[in-house]
């Protein structure tokens, strides 16, 4: 399973739907996606992790880097995730307090 990335605009936000595995091999693709969107002026991002089957610290690093990047443009990067195995990773690293994590895209866009 490789990494899949689909982006679309909704309610003034850019939603990135991520699928597959975010690891040391595929994470650079996600980084390029986020960087490209911010460079195009899309500074309010929602990253939907619901279809992600695996993520390591490289993936976490990309999300942290993305958050820092959008904040320099006064933007936002919020997450959609209900998978316990991923939420556990955010809790272990303390990143659950750094990111706003929502249970659905509609909840995230309404925030």
């Amino acid at each position, binding site marked *: 399973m490789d990494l899949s990335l689909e982006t679309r605009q909704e309610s003034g936000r850019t939603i990135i739907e991520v699928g597959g595995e975010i690891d*040391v091999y595929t994470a650079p693709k996600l980084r390029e996606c986020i960087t490209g969107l911010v460079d195009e002026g899309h500074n309010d991002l929602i990253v939907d992790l619901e279809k992600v089957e*695996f993520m*390591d610290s*490289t993936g976490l690093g990309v999300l942290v880097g993305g958050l820092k990047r959008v904040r320099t443009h006064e933007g936002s990067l919020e997450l959609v995730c209900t998978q316990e*195995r991923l939420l556990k990773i955010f809790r*272990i690293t303390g990143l659950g307090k750094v990111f706003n994590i929502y249970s659905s895209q509609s909840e995230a866009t309404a925030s």
Partner: protein
Amino acid sequence: MADPATNGSGDVTIAIARDPALVRTVRLVAAAVARRADCPDTLVEEIRLAVGEACAVMIGANQSPAAAAEQVEVSIRAASPFAVTVTGRVEAEEPGFEDIGLDPWALLRGISEDLTVTEDQGTTTLQMSWGR
């Protein structure tokens, strides 16, 4: 190239080139060995994550040509406790991790019941184990 070897006890040793594309292969092998050792599904998932994370930190996403010629060795002991040893040179620089005060092993410390990190002349050895 991945080079798995078993010793008849269900234990597996696999050595890979420092290529990020091969880390997934090691994760799959680790999960397969854990399943064969009758580990519960939640433990299989933890072992898969731990082995993938250990290799990710060792190898890193940005490879230098010199580093690519080296290998990372993963030894998996299927007995109880289930144990994994990963040996190699640490290459990774996690962008953003240092900025929020996390060391490279932060995730591993959280998912392994027993993690030991030792370094000898530039070679790092990670030893992780899980009871069942």
